[in-house]
Structures are given as C-alpha cells and as structure tokens.
C-alpha cells in the first residue's frame, strides 16, 4: 500500500551550521515514538543527517520531507543549490568538492552521498547544474525485521 500515513517537511537553511542536525534529531524522536525497529531508525537518521549537512554546506535553501507509508519510510531532500555536474563521480567514496571551510566542520570528505546510498533500499538522485539537487531515499519497513 502506498497510502501516506505521515508527512512532515522541514526547511533547512544553508550555512546554518549551528542548527544542522536538528532535523535528524527530530525525525529520530518521531520514529522512536512510533516504536520502529532500532536498526531501521539508525539508518534513517544517518540518511537524514548526511542529507541535511549537504544542504547546509552547499545550498542556500532546502527542504527535507519525511513520509511514512505502511511499507516504507521515505526521505526526500531537495535544495536550490549549485547542482551536481557528474553524479557518478559524486557517488564515489572519497570524491568531494568541499571547501576547506566545510572540511573544518567535519564534513565534505566525500562520504556523505555514499553513506546515504549505503543506508537506503532505494536511492535516487536528480540534479541540474545551477538549479538544485533532489535526493530520494527509501527504506523498506520490513527489510530489517
């Protein structure tokens, strides 16, 4: 069944390093409250946190939309950022276009997108240079049961 049970959208502000991570923390709280499997929550939170950090580092504005159906948990992260030129390359572990400043924040070592993909059952990345990037990640609810 694809019917949506729950949907919440969070706005993420670019360069707001202080608040980065709060969305992931909130999503974690909701998933825990709903009593979902701990391993599954762990994966979802890593996806949300990495995606959130990407938006904060590269884009001006973005959103994280978290939806729940009976079988799946979906996270869609959309930003109005610079876009990704070579998606294949961006998904390679270690590849990064981060600035020194970003690295000083502990991110931008070329692990973010691969981490998201690793923790998803289904992963999709659409990007247009100059317009923005949308990452969709899906976790099956019965996958780690």
């Amino acid at each position, binding site marked *: 069944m694809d019917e949506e*049970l*729950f949907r919440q959208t969070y706005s993420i502000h670019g360069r707001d390093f202080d608040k980065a991570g709060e969305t992931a923390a909130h999503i974690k709280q*909701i998933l825990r*409250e*709903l*009593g979902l499997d701990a391993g599954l929550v762990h994966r979802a939170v890593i996806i949300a946190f990495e995606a959130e950090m990407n938006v904060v580092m590269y884009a001006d504005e973005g959103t994280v939309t978290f939806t*729940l159906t*009976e079988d799946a948990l979906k996270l869609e992260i959309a930003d109005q950022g610079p876009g990704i030129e070579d998606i294949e390359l961006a998904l390679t572990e270690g590849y990064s276009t981060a600035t020194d400043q970003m690295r000083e924040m502990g991110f931008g070592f070329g692990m973010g997108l691969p981490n998201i993909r690793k923790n998803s059952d289904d992963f999709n990345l659409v990007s247009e240079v100059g317009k923005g990037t949308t990452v969709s990640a899906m976790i099956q*609810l019965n996958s780690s049961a």
Partner: protein
Amino acid sequence: MPELTHGFKIDRDKCDGHLACMRACPTQAVRVREGKAHVLPDLCVDCGLCLTACPSGAIRAETRSFAEFDKFKYKVAVPSPVLFGQFPMAVGPGHIVAGLLGMGFDAVWDFTVELALVNRAILDYVERWEGPFPLLSVSCPVVVRLVQVLYPSMVDQLIRVQVPRELAGLEAKQKFSEQLGIPPDDIAAIYITPCQAKSISILKPAEGAKSNLEGALGISDVYNNILALTHTLQEDQVQLASNHSICSGAMLRWTINEAQGQILQRHRYMSVTGLANVIQVFDDIEKGKLRNIEYLECDACWGGCIGGNLTVDNIYVTRSKLHRLLAEVPAAAPQVQAEVERRYPATDFSLKGRVRRRTTNDGPTDLRERVRRMKVEEAVTRALPGLDCGLCGAPSCGAFAKDVARGTGQRSDCVFLREGRLRELKTTYLSRRKKPPEIGEQFGVSPPPA
C-alpha cells in the same frame, strides 16, 4: 488477552474519588471517572502504593483464609524469613514455628538450603553472563512487572534463575510426598508472605508458568494467631520446634538489605530499594548509564522485604531484631553446606517460561494506528495547559492525551477544554459531601444573634 489478576480491590462504595491513589501510582495505572477510581489492569504492577495513599480506606489487599487450604491432606508453611523479625524478642523462632504448627500447619519448611542454592546459581549466572548489563534480580515481583510494563527493552536483563520460595515449594512437596507416601497433589506448600505482590506472583507468575506453591497467607494474617498461641505453648513444644526452625544465619541475612552483596563481593553489585528509587535507576539504565554494574538487586519496598505491606512491625524495629537474632544462630551450619553441595548439580534453576514484555494498550497495533494515535496525542497535548491537575481523571496531561489518542478518554473531560466539566465535577463531588456543622454548633455554642 485475558485480564490480569491483581490482588487489590477498590470498594466502589467507599471510594470518594480522591485523586490520591491516581497520583501515587508509579505506572499511571489509575483513572478516576465519575468520581470513582479504577485500575487499568495492563499497567498495574501490584506495588500497593495506591492502598497506602487512599484516604478513604477504599482499597484493600485481597487475602486468602487458612480454611481455603483445607482440601489438602498435608499443609506445609513456607515462611518468609521476614516473619521471624516481626515478634517481640521473647517470641523466638521456636515459638513462631510452634505457633504455625498450632495454627494447623502440618510442617514448617526452613528454606536456608534453597537460599544458598539460589545464591550460588546467581553467582554462576553472573559470571557466565556476557551482557547486556546489569542483570536484574527477580525476587521482587513488583520489579519484574515494572520491567514488563515500563521498561520492556530490559526484560532480557531479568536474571533467569528461579527464586528460593519456588524451589522450596517444589522440594517440600517432593520430600513430604516420599516421606508420607501420598501424591504431591495432596500437599499444599503455603508461603507466608510479607507482601501482596508475592501472593499474586504465586497465583500468576510473570513467566506465565504454574507456581510450585499453592498460595500465600500474609504475615499479618497469621501474626495474631501465632502470638495468641505462644502464651499456651509448653517449653518442650518450643524446643522441638526450634530444631526444625532456622538452622543458619544465612536465611535471616537474606532479609536484611544487600543480602546478595556478600555473595557477589567480587562483582559489581548494587542494591536499590523503594519503587521511586528503582524507577530512577531504571531510567538511568535505559539511557545507557550504569552499564558497568553486573548485578542489580532491586526491591520495590523501601528497606527491602521487611517493608512489605503485609508486615506488622516497622522496618527499623524488624531490622534491629533480625540483627540480634543473627547473633544467636550459627552463621553457617555444616549440614546446610553439605546439602547445598549434594543438591546443586541436580537442581533445575530455570524459570519455567519466559518473562515477556506486557502488551499494553500502547502496544504494537499496526503502523497506521500508531501514526494516528501519535497525531491525536500531539494535537491534544498542544491544547492542554500542562498543569497535571488531574481533574480529568488522568494523572497527567500526558497520560490524558494518550487516553484520548487510544479512545479511552475524551477531550471534554478536561476543564480547560470544556467549561461545563467543572460544573459536573462540582455536582459529583460537592453533592456527595456531608454538610459540615456550623463552627459554633460544633462546640455547642449557638450563633450570635444577627
């Protein structure tokens, strides 16, 4: 799910709808509707705090009478060691055992050996256990039920070693069955209990198995009988009974707090008593603190079992008496040690079933329903003042929001959400009240002329 058995009854006629029991309940299991308290059986852990808190005396512990065991041919009393610290010093263990026999018991079982066996089994278990830590003691049934209801993620930390009273019941029946040549079913092993919770755990063990004991009588139920009989006892009766009574201090020491601390000296051991303290420590464990404690002994009653709700004397007097008794009995009788060595390899310490999390109304319904409840709960919580006034009949705004979400409470029960609610409460509560006498009348003075 069949309704759980609990040992407390609320007398609806006596209940004045005070919110005291509701506020005292550590698991938020009490609701007050239309001016009368009732219990949510899934959440009740049999701690008995509501009984102590009730100002109207409307809550009482259900007890059994000795006559109920008349159908058995042979009745064995299995007294909790706490019993021996309840009487005046002049009434020694011999008198108490003789008193139990005088009451109609055919034998009294001293479970020093079972205590020693269980102590050793616990030590072995702790040494083999690889985690998660800490292991939790299971001797207090309230603690076991508390874990099942409020700390379901910790159920596997409950140590899977049977409690001494259960081993004693089994052994007593076997021994007397052989000795007397009658089937074990004709023998009743009856625990003399310091608290209601243990009596319920015998009726309905948390692990879902059948108890080895046939039932329990409260210490307060046998106290007067024993005390009355002690005056008529002959010295030789007492002397004879003494031989059957406490043969080592180990049994008494068990009842004085931190009993297992001595056995687990070389391990990281901690003891907590009092339900509020136990809850505080469990919260810490759930948060990931205290991972370094290996064994946690916990008792719901402050001061341990000597503080049980069916005891007679206060815990300080009891403890003092037990210390004096300890000085009079040998610390370790050699025959106990020999018996422990003989029985240990052959004893089955395992619990007969698994202690599982108790499914409560919050429990795993389908995801759709969980999401719906979460949304309702959030919406209701936003509308509430967070004062936890209790006038809705739930112990806190949070509990109320949960009740509404699961359909057992209504928004309109909150005085902040519906003005009429206060009027209704006035009708319910004020109409019930007997009109107090005028101040002057009370002292036989007529009011001054206007």
